[in-house]
């Protein structure tokens, strides 16, 4: 391969660093109305009275919206395909406010100062209600967070709002209880994972204006422009044909921009005032009023015989979706479906649980999407089992983990909100990943610990993980390739580059197929008017789904080119040879270059625009796999931890762009380490978010990670574009369990609650 599997610099990195306009707010109209949102100071309250008269009269205020002024149609902001597996439980504005930071009203004014002043003039009388803040007490709580009658599920997901249940699920293969009874060793533990903030650098941003056809043109910092168009249309009762959504460069998403944010309010302002409007979330709003990772309580039972052969896994999860049910069912299901198949040789497996509402910031999609939560619990429990059996945890895994050409019944049973899809592991280099990682970290010398003196212990720990590559039969991507005069191409994709580099790798796939170079493929993403459909950048789907679409479009383009060349050379198209630059035929003496052919097509003879569109949906979701190994140095007296090295060996099929793929893995590792070690969304006793800025919510800095070692396994997934699987999420999954296992190996205490801060480790040591 000449372009794929080569380290091509990101096609827009230079332009961005050099300061060219790229992001949503860079494109806001200069005279935009500034939209500001009045947010609830209460965790749960009913608005008894709201008076915006004074605000409306303030000079410079163009519009004030309260729940009296907006359409009342339940919808979900989740940003998923249709029909959504998330309950339609949200209104643009509602008489209830369900968390501190929930929307009460919005103002649009000529400038920020006026908007801020107007917010202060809105009088609200609340009936403060008893909030539900402890998710373990949410089910059947006397406070019902969603008492309204007009909300609903799109298909059965276990939606029972009257008992604060957003979703529920149960599945069992064989009889787990019976199987556990036959096991010689059973590990039983309860794990807790916390809410994590996405903390992308670009705040949620949206702006809108009307065009000369009076259509609503929205720029949004979104991972899902096509879903945004559909959801705005549904929520605001505007025909979809009257809406155009443009996604410029997105400054990080991690799932946090899959769901909608300010789009509804800004659209309404522009539709009502006919003026451009914009909303940039403050950092506080990003933390308080966007989304978090779903916190979970995970009860795991793992049974084995005394040789270490796993017999049964039982997993019960209680998940906290916060005030609204975005991704409630699906994140929770992925905690099972992208974890349990790793141990496919068990006799029996059960996965069940509930997702509950609480009066906290809504949870939503977040890189790892349940898998990181489930992985922490199961991969910690596997190490506990190894310890109990006195087996090296690597050997225990090797004995039980999934291998190439094997399958798991779970694939067929569990999908994302629906039934799953049976599939074989056509590529699974997990065995290599484990062996290679073991060598790279120096497991043999370092496991389990070394006392290095000076109160310090060094230890190692590891975990394995799997993810998916898009959602089979649901996720869809399309790409259009257009030939231009002078022989270069436009590639338009609905796929959404949010920083992961999809524009670059999709150009690489096209260039490889078209036998040209990346500079001849001009990528444009994504714009609901101009680019073909794509479900969006989520579920680790872009490389595999959208990449396949690009590949198919490129093959079609080659066919079109050959036909056109055949006309020019006056030979049969079947005989045409194309090497990316010129066409020849055994039936003809003459040849024609791509440049000449394209100039002929647009200026001289047989004029015709050549355009090819490819689209793709998966019939399976080949999982990428990885083994993650951590080496830490821990202070015996204070439990302070230094992370010395994190080794990742990843099977993502062909890395289309090895450097960018490495960036995906390493970015995921560091985000996962943040979750494992110190990141935590914290609330006061009254439900106010405490961690609402960068001073109170800390993400890893350049000084917090010493070394990352990342390698890829040789692997070629036949169904993927040039052998590729996904790589966007897999990196985030292993750090919590690997760190927990390393802490156990160092100090002999088992951490069951994230984040594993030095203080919590110290507390466990005290109890030991």
């Amino acid at each position, binding site marked *: 391969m000449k372009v794929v599997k080569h380290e091509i610099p990101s096609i827009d990195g230079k332009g961005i660093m050099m300061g060219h306009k790229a992001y949503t707010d860079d494109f806001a109209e200069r005279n935009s109305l500034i939209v500001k949102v009045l947010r609830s100071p209460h965790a749960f309250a009913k608005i008894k009275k709201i008076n915006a008269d004074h605000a409306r009269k303030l000079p410079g205020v163009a519009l004030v919206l309260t729940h009296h002024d907006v359409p009342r149609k339940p919808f979900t902001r989740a940003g998923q395909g249709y029909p959504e597996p998330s309950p339609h439980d949200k209104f643009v504005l509602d008489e209830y406010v369900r968390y501190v930071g929930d929307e009460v009203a919005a103002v649009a004014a000529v400038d920020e100062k006026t908007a801020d002043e107007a917010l202060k003039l809105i009088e609200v009388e609340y009936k403060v209600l008893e909030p539900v803040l402890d998710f373990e007490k949410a089910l059947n709580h006397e406070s019902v967070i969603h008492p309204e009658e007009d909300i609903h599920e799109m298909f059965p997901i276990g939606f029972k709002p009257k008992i604060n249940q957003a979703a529920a699920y149960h599945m069992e293969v064989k009889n787990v209880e019976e199987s556990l009874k036959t096991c010689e060793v059973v590990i039983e533990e309860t794990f807790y994972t916390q809410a994590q903030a996405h903390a992308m650098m670009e705040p949620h941003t949206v702006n809108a204006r009307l065009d000369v056809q009076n259509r609503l043109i929205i720029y949004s910092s979104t991972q899902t422009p096509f879903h945004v168009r559909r959801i705005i249309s549904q929520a605001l009762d505007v025909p979809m044909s009257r809406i155009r959504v443009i996604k410029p460069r997105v400054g990080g998403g991690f799932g946090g921009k899959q769901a909608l944010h300010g789009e509804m309010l800004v659209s309404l302002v522009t539709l009502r005032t006919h003026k451009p409007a914009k909303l940039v979330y403050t950092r506080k709003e990003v933390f308080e009023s966007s989304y978090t990772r779903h916190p979970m309580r995970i009860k795991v039972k793992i049974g084995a015989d005394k040789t270490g052969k796993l017999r049964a896994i039982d997993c019960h999860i209680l998940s906290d979706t916060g005030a609204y049910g975005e991704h409630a069912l699906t994140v929770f299901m992925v905690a099972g479906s992208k974890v349990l198949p790793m141990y496919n040789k068990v006799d029996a497996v059960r996965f069940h649980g509930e997702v509950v509402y609480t009066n906290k910031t809504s949870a939503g999609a977040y890189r790892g999407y349940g898998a990181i939560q489930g992985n922490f619990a199961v991969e910690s429990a596997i190490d506990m089992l190894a310890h109990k059996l006195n087996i090296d945890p690597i050997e225990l895994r090797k004995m039980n983990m999934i291998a190439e050409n094997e399958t798991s019944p779970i694939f067929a049973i569990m999908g994302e909100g629906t039934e799953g899809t049976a599939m074989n592991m056509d590529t699974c280099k997990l065995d290599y990943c484990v062996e290679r990682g073991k060598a790279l970290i120096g497991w043999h010398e370092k496991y389990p610990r070394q006392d290095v003196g000076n109160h310090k212990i060094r230890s190692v720990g590891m975990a394995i993980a799997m993810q998916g590559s898009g959602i089979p039969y649901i996720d869809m991507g399309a790409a259009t390739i257009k030939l231009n005069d002078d022989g270069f191409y436009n590639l338009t994709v609905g796929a959404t580059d949010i920083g992961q580099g999809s524009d670059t790798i999709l150009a690489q796939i096209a260039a490889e197929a078209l036998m040209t170079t990346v500079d001849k493929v001009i990528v444009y993403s994504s714009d609901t008017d101009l680019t073909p459909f794509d479900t969006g950048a989520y579920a680790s789907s872009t490389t595999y789904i959208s990449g396949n679409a690009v590949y198919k479009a490129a093959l079609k383009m080659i066919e079109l080119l050959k036909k056109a060349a055949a006309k020019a050379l006056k030979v049969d198209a079947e005989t045409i040879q194309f090497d990316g630059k010129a066409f020849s035929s055994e039936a003809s003496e003459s040849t024609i270059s791509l440049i000449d052919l394209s100039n002929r097509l647009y200026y001289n003879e047989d004029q015709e625009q050549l355009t090819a569109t490819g689209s793709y949906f998966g019939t399976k979701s080949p999982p990428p796999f990885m083994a993650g190994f951590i080496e830490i140095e821990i202070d015996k*007296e*204070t439990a302070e931890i230094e992370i010395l090295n994190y080794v990742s060996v990843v099977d993502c099929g062909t890395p289309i762009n090895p450097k960018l793929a490495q960036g995906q893995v390493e970015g995921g590792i560091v985000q996962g380490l943040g979750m494992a070690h110190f990141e935590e969304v914290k609330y006061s006793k009254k439900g106010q978010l405490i961690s609402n800025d960068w001073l109170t919510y800390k993400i890893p800095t350049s*000084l917090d990670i010493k070394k990352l070692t990342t390698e890829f396994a040789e692997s070629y997934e036949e169904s993927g574009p040039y052998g590729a699987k996904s790589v966007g999420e897999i990196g985030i999954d292993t750090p919590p369990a690997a760190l927990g296992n390393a802490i156990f190996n160092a100090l002999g205490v088992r951490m069951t609650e994230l984040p594993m801060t030095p*203080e919590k480790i110290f507390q466990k040591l005290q109890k030991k």
Partner: protein
Amino acid sequence: MKIQQYHRATSLEDAYNVLMANPKNHILGGALWLKQLDREIETAIDLQDLKLDEISQSETHFRIGSMTTLYRLESAEALNEWCDQLVRSAMQHIMGVSFRHSATLGGSIMGRYAFSDLIGVFLVLEAELEFHKTGKMSLEAFLHERKMPNDILVAIYIPKQKGKSFFKKVSNTRLDFAILNFAFFKTDDQLRIAIGSRPSIAMLAKETMAFINASGWNDDTKPQALELFMNEVSFGNNQRGSAEYRKQLAKVYFMRGVEEVMKGDC
């Protein structure tokens, strides 16, 4: 935060007069936390033309202008050489370089921030503050003042004393505020110990210092010194850590810090 007027002071007296004119008037330091304040400032007074950003030295003292930036402090070779790099060690843990290019020593002291890593350092270096009207006052006395002096901080004096230093900030990430911070400074005959972000503001452990300075540091005195220290210093809870964990950190780093600065001594 809203500022109505901006005044660029032409002299200290001018700045002082404007400051006195309205309780809503405010002296600008680096202004880095200013936006987080939910208050209105009538006139913001800028001291940038008053040459208060210089570090000078006499035979006995360093004089640091109150508008000296933290970055300048960490880069001040002579000062850091005298104090065994204590100032630099502390500064390098405060936010990023671009933050420290704006943040001023005066602003950091006048803010009396409980999480401050820097106040402990200046306590053990026996810093003295010079105010425009009030005159000189030790930093320690200033921290004990109930009411903030309604005055302008002009300079900070550090006596020249050679010594050995130890600084430790315990935090969850390198950019986070401290769970606890420690500054130790040992001259020929004096050991000084400060502990901050308890989560209350930094304090000198005076009884412990007096005990060690009088009785020395050896296997017999160590347990007593530790006990004194733990009795003398109070700890509380905040979102970064509990009192219990802070106590553990205090015990550990008290011992490590004193050992470090006493090395080769006794």
